[in-house]
């Protein structure tokens, strides 16, 4: 019988692991936890351009939730997130799987699908605005070809403008999703394919029932990345619609940015950030928790 290991008698490897994580711990504590607390504090004050020490309780939050533009932006974000994430994953996965079929010109195709990711939305947003503009872009072009009945004017439509943001951002993101999933696909054992061929399982079933579950971690990574991109959605909206028509394509990050800089209302912007963060965490936390329970692989060293 020995006494349980004392806390200070850590094995050398664990000690190194702890030390290696120190920069991360520092970043998390100072840069993330610190700024969140700072933001929380500011959101309770009357800060304008600069932080202030005059506390006004929850007044900023009250104002926030009386603001139609803010409420609309949350709605838009939910709709956008759902479509953007699911479509990006679907398209990215299809591209990855198809590119994985030993096609000719793989390198070229991969670059074609990836290039939008390299383009800043400052300019591509404008191109999308043109393409989607009913007077300038696709609708006009198709009608000129003799299909007078074709209508494609979502970008000027209050109810459909968010779909155009989805379209442009899926165009930008799905190439990267493809790259990530392709890396995942190619770390899967080739023997799976031999086994499946022997068992006579049709290719699509192998993908759906065998490969897809094995891509679980990659898809989880993609999901989180797309989710953070969703929450931070800003550039595309500004360059394509400036939040319009009216406020129809307003999103929280733009609302926050407008108030942070242009409108010099640090406190309201902070309140918006806090609400946004809490909303996202409330949605994501149960998901991540369930996943971590599911994935528990016992203690590792």
């Amino acid at each position, binding site marked *: 019988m020995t006494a349980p290991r004392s806390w200070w008698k850590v094995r050398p490897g664990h000690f190194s692991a702890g030390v290696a994580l120190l920069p991360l711990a520092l970043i998390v504590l100072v840069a993330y936890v610190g700024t969140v607390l700072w933001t929380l504090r500011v959101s309770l004050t009357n800060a*304008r351009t600069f932080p202030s020490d005059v506390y006004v309780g929850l007044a900023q939050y009250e104002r926030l939730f009386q603001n139609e533009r803010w409420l609309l932006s949350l709605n838009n974000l939910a709709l956008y997130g759902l479509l953007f994430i699911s479509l990006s994953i679907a398209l990215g996965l299809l591209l990855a799987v198809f590119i994985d079929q030993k096609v000719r010109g793989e390198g070229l195709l991969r670059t074609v699908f990836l290039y939008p990711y390299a383009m800043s939305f400052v300019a591509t947003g404008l191109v999308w605005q043109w393409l989607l503009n009913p007077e300038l872009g696709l609708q006009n072009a198709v009608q000129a070809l003799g299909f007078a009945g074709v209508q494609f004017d979502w*970008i*000027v439509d209050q109810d459909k*403008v968010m779909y155009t943001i989805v379209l442009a951002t899926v165009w930008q993101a799905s190439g990267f999703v493809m790259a990530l999933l392709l890396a995942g696909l190619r770390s899967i054992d080739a023997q799976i394919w031999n086994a499946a061929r022997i068992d006579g399982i049709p290719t699509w079933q192998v993908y759906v029932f065998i490969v897809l579950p094995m891509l679980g971690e990659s898809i989880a990574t993609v999901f989180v990345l797309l989710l953070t991109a969703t929450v931070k959605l800003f550039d595309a909206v500004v360059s394509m619609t400036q*939040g*319009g028509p*009216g*406020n129809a394509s307003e999103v929280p990050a733009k609302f926050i940015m407008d*108030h942070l*800089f242009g409108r010099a209302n640090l406190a309201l912007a902070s309140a918006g950030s806090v609400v946004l963060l809490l909303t996202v965490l409330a949605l994501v936390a149960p998901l991540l928790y369930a996943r971590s329970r599911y994935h528990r692989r016992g203690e590792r060293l």
Partner: protein
Amino acid sequence: MLKFACIAASALTFTVGSVHAAGPKAEVIHWWTSGGESAAVKTLADAYTNAGGVWVDTAIALGEQARSVAVNRILGGNPPTAAQFNTSKQFLDLVEQGMLNPIDNVAQQQGWDKLLPETVLSVVRVKGHYYAAPVNIHMPTWIWYSKAAFKQAGIGAEPKTVDELFAVLDKLRAAGLVPLAHGGQPWQDNIVFTAVLANVGGTELYLKVLRDKDRQAIEGEAFKKVLLSFKRLQSYTDKGSPGRNWNDATSMLIAGKAGVQIMGDWAKGEFAQAHQSPGKDFGCIAGFGAKSPYIIQGDVFVFPKTSDPQAIKAQQLLAGVMLAPVTQVAFSNKKGSIPVRTDVDVSSMDLCAQQGLAIMKDKSRHLGNGEIYMSPDQNGALTDILTAYWNKNQPVEKVQKDIAAALKN
């Protein structure tokens, strides 16, 4: 670690050591990055160089961006010598936090109190001290029209009243043209509103609503009429309007596809690019009637706090140079604006600018842009309501109520 320290140290010596250059060195943050604007800022820089200074240019696109960088640099302890702001309450917080150097002796020397329009002074002067050097006046609500389009629609004379304007728009529509070229972005919607408020509502209502935030006026019949006229203009825009950049709207006038655009005097630059000239290819209307107000908007430079005597010297020199008559005219000629002082030689300026300067001679016609009377926050909230109203079908009474709530102090 040693390396890090070295880099930090060298950065430090740079900022400290940079002062002992030839003349007083001034780092200026501004957002004049497009072609015409660049030419304009060059006149300021040249004037400063001629006065013996060294101009260090930090151009950052977009006003919000440039202003936030200036504020961040002040916070980070590395302020520029001067930073551009709009003629507005944008820098009031900086003044109140004691982060700006006043330039009182320059203002007194040049006699700003007599020289500058009261509207501009009301922003520049805080509690008796002068904190910003104004460089120009932009007038955001010019009504531009394409002579080609007017001709095609059979319109002989330019409209003289608001009713005539609507009649003109109807005629343009009948001719199969786009009557009102508009870029459906919130700030452009706001400009159209300002134009309607000034021309339909008049100076008195304008001040009651935007300056005094008078609830009765906002919920009254006169303002309702303003809002309805504003909304009526929306019906003259084309389907492609939402999201469009202002210069694309101007291009429609240039091409003769559209008749009228309500936009600031910077639109002259776009016409000039397409080799069109005022009076010949396009016309400009500042407002309707002999008493129509001239809306004042513009740019100023503020001078972040510093105790470095060299930097203070640079700030004073800069402020003096910016208001010198020659600089004012040269700058505005490139920028499309008009000088902030009226005692200058206007012969070199274009037709529209001369028209504007003539109006400016009458002090009773001076009127500030919304930002001069409202905090950035209130101005933004108003814009939100207006752009929603412009794009959606909302009862005008609701809009009145919303505006009253947004402007409540």
